[in-house]
């Protein structure tokens, strides 16, 4: 009797080595590597007058100091990853700045030395003469256009995009009620516990480059390095080993070090390593979430939204390497689970003198959700209606799928929700939330969201049964803690009828699987998970065909159970998978592992050559999955909070989540993803704030002052599920990685407004911010 692994709370197979301290993170690789340190701009905007590295180069233990002038690619702009016709003024930085710096933390020089300690000493000796320029730090200042971030970008506008469904103007004019609202969401930082790191080795003899990179996309890094250095891709291997959290910013490429470390390794015939420190992580790693929205909504007396117009500016930062994906997602996801018959959205992507932006867990959605949910709350207040009831009246109903929203989506298609049941999410959340706790200053908050997950273009997988009967599987996308090795072992084990412990998964290693895209957009389970399913099924079919000859049975009478191919109904007639693997590879020489059974005098004679036309040796297959469109996960969060009326301390009394990511592969892993996401959302809503001053200096670039929550700030979270399988993929799964974080800001704003009576229109909050709002009210 074979267990079905899909859906079971299988404990993680990757834990043992991580718990013993035997994980392999990029900084753990050494091999006598030279170590590096950046010289970074202390100014948010300045002209570089001169760079003098003479003293640093003379220091004992220093191997080299690179400035832009020292690099063959020093004058080349880094790639603009996702071009878009509306991105009319896309700009990317150079590997090392030569003439102008546009954010504090931008790389100017790179020191390579015998140790990190010496490299840091030498970096102090690099003398850069700057001429400071006026700083544009907020998106509002960028829009005012008094100063320019790029001289050749008028008004600091990188991109503008306008979309409309229906007739917003006419509907607004005819609407019984109209309301204008303004919302502001500040920048935030993902802050994985492991910063970024790169290790590289060049083997001059066979012209091979080997790179370990704490990245979410080793396959793309490999492609880019091959182009830059003029090497065939097969001469470049990129491995994302254990990665200590990603949450988005590690999908960005290329950070300057990702080119400089491999280049230095090629120049100096030694392995080279660079490991980021926490302070530079705060300024040199991409951030997200800064947006200012101006909404006009028209609604009827029952609180139904008739038309919604949103005009927002997006804080893009100093460069646009990741294109305009973030505001595209915000624009697309703003209507969320609600029927908005007339919707117009315009955004402008603004340059500011701050760290560039690219997706951070949630990617454009937390702010979009905040705007929509706050708007519904405002409608409820205006009409003296219950907030839950207003939501219920606007929700898309379970029978309306597929539901077309009609605006552009990040994969080039338009938004079409594949499946869902939003009213049930809401009903369950309210039931699970229970009655309001007694006492003063208690508020209730609620938020519903949808999340486009499982974005293409594709992922692939390789699955092989070894002659031992064990199974190895590989895919290109790396794990940053999402338990890929466990959940894909579950998918493969089901198809091959083996124990989950007999499947060993490698992910994010181009030596094992060279094709693919990356880990982002809650896409791993959908893309790589289904690719694993496809590849494993191909292996199962092959096993049946080989076993059919051996067992003298028809293919359709065979099944894979308990590690063997067996005749259905006659469990004693079977052949172990390991033996099938032997037979799959006709050999001349027996090399152990039972392979004598596949030699020429031992194998059962059959017609024709040992490998028939079209047959390939080995019990293995490579499969791909390319989604026809995104899958759409959804969820409803609700909470009770208490806000101390004097200190404005926040106490989260109860927090419930009802979540729908289609079919659940592993509930244990899913629970961890949601709990972690909500915690990150709570941090972003009430504790963490990137405190930029008017000069563009991040004043709290340390964990001492950037208040990431400890255990003491995170309450227990009660999680419940519904499952609306996705009709788009064989496994019926949707993604789950980002879900937890998306509505938290909206939920806490709603609850705090309910508790305090102050209108909450911005994120993040803090006790100080609530105190300021209370003073305004007085």
């Amino acid at each position, binding site marked *: 009797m074979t267990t079905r692994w899909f859906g079971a709370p299988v404990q993680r197979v990757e834990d043992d080595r991580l718990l013993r*301290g035997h994980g392999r993170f990029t900084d753990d690789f050494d091999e006598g590597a030279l170590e590096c340190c950046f010289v970074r701009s202390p100014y948010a905007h300045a002209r570089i007058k001169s760079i003098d590295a003479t003293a640093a180069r003379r220091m004992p233990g220093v191997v080299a100091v690179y400035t832009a002038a020292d690099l063959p690619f020093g004058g080349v702009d880094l790639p603009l990853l996702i071009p878009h016709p509306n991105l009319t003024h896309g700009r990317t930085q150079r590997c090392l700045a030569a003439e102008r710096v546009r954010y504090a933390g931008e790389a100017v020089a790179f020191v390579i030395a015998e140790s990190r300690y010496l490299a840091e000493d030498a970096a102090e000796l690099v003398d850069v003469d700057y001429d400071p320029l006026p700083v544009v730090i907020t998106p509002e200042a960028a829009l005012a256009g008094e100063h320019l971030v790029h001289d050749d970008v008028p008004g600091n506008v990188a991109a503008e995009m306008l979309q409309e469904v229906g007739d917003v103007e006419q509907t607004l004019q005819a609407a019984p009620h109209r309301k204008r609202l303004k919302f502001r969401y500040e920048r935030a930082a993902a802050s*994985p516990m492991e910063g970024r790191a790169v290790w590289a080795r060049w083997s001059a003899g066979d012209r091979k480059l080997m790179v370990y990179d704490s990245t979410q996309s080793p396959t793309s890094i490999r492609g880019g390095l091959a182009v830059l250095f003029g090497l065939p891709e097969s001469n470049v291997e990129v491995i994302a080993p*254990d990665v200590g959290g990603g949450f988005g910013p590690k999908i960005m490429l290329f950070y300057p070090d990702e080119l400089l470390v491999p280049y230095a390794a090629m120049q100096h015939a030694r392995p080279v390593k660079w490991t980021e420190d*926490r302070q530079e992580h705060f300024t040199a790693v991409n951030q997200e979430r800064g947006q200012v929205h101006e909404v006009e909504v028209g609604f009827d007396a029952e609180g139904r939204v008739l038309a919604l117009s949103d005009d927002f500016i997006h804080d893009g930062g100093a460069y646009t390497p990741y294109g305009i994906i973030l505001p595209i997602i915000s624009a697309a996801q703003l209507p969320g689970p609600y029927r908005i018959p007339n919707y117009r959205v315009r955004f402008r992507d603004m340059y500011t003198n701050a760290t560039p932006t690219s997706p951070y867990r949630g990617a454009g959605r937390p702010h979009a959700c905040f705007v929509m949910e706050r708007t519904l709350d405002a409608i409820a207040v205006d009409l003296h209606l219950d907030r839950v009831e207003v939501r219920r009246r606007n929700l898309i109903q379970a029978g309306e799928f597929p539901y077309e929203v009609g605006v552009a989506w990040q994969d080039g298609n338009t938004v079409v929700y594949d499946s869902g049941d939003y009213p049930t999410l809401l009903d369950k959340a309210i039931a699970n939330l229970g009655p309001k706790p007694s006492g003063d200053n208690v508020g209730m908050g609620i938020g519903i969201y949808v999340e486009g997950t499982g974005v293409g273009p594709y992922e692939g997988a390789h699955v092989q049964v070894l002659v031992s009967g064990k199974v190895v599987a590989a895919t290109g996308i790396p794990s940053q803690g*999402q338990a890929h090795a466990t959940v894909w072992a579950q998918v493969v084990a089901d198809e091959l009828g083996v124990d989950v412990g007999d499947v060993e998964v490698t992910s994010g290693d181009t030596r094992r699987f060279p094709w693919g895209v990356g880990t982002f957009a809650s896409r791993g389970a959908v893309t790589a998970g289904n690719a694993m399913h496809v590849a494993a099924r191909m292996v199962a079919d092959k096993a049946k065909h080989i076993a059919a000859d051996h067992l003298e049975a028809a293919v359709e009478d065979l099944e894979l159970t308990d590690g063997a191919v067996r005749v259905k109904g006659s469990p004693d007639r079977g052949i172990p998978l390991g033996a099938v693997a032997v037979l799959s590879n006709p050999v001349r020489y027996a090399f152990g592992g039972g392979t004598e059974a596949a030699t020429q005098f031992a194998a059962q004679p059959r017609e024709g050559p040992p490998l028939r036309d079209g047959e390939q040796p080995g019990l293995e297959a490579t499969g791909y999955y390319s989604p026809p469109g995104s899958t759409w996960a959804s969820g409803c969060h609700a909470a009770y909070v208490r806000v101390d009326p004097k200190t404005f301390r926040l106490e989260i009394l109860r927090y419930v989540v009802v979540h729908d990511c289609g079919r659940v592969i592993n509930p244990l892993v899913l629970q961890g993803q949601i709990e*972690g996401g909500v915690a990150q959302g709570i941090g972003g809503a009430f504790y963490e704030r990137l405190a930029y001053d008017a000069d563009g200096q991040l004043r709290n670039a*340390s964990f001492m002052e950037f208040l990431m929550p*400890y*255990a003491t700030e995170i309450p227990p*979270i009660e999680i419940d599920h519904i499952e609306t399988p996705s009709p788009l993929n064989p496994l019926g799964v949707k993604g789950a990685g980002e879900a937890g974080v998306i509505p938290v800001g909206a939920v806490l704003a709603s609850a705090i407004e309910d508790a305090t009576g102050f209108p909450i229109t911005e994120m993040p909050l803090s006790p100080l911010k609530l105190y300021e709002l209370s003073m305004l009210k007085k």
Partner: protein
Amino acid sequence: MKVNGVERAAPDDTRLLLSDHLRHELGLTGTHVGCEHGVCGCCTVLLDGAPIRSCLMLAVQAEGHELTTIEGLARDGAALHPVQQAFHECHALQCGFCTPGFVMSVVGLLAQHPHPTTQQIEEGISGNLCRCTGYASIRRAVHRAMELSPLPLGGEGQGEGLQGGGRK
């Protein structure tokens, strides 16, 4: 200094941090460095049985002391330490980067308080940052570790243990 029961020479370079010494000189890379300013707790090791931040101490300051790192909790091939086992069972780790620091903090906590109160547990784990789990599973793991005792590492007459820990 003694590291995981083995006598080791202190480094010549007096400015070397203990965390860097453990990782890069002794190859004990299970001790992680998350912030280098003593806030995140990833680099937590036991010094004479009590948890400390190895990024806030110079390696030479550890001369004459006994250190236990994550690698010293369970020998290769042997069963996991109860705290490690509890983290596994409760899914109390995702990326695994903060995990060694958390495990060492909890080992230290349970050595000091074999039956901690809820408040003591909360304080015991609130000096370490985790960005993946949201802490709920880590709390569960502490409770599970208490069930899985006796804890082999030091504390209130529970025996010699791997490194003869216990507060001095």
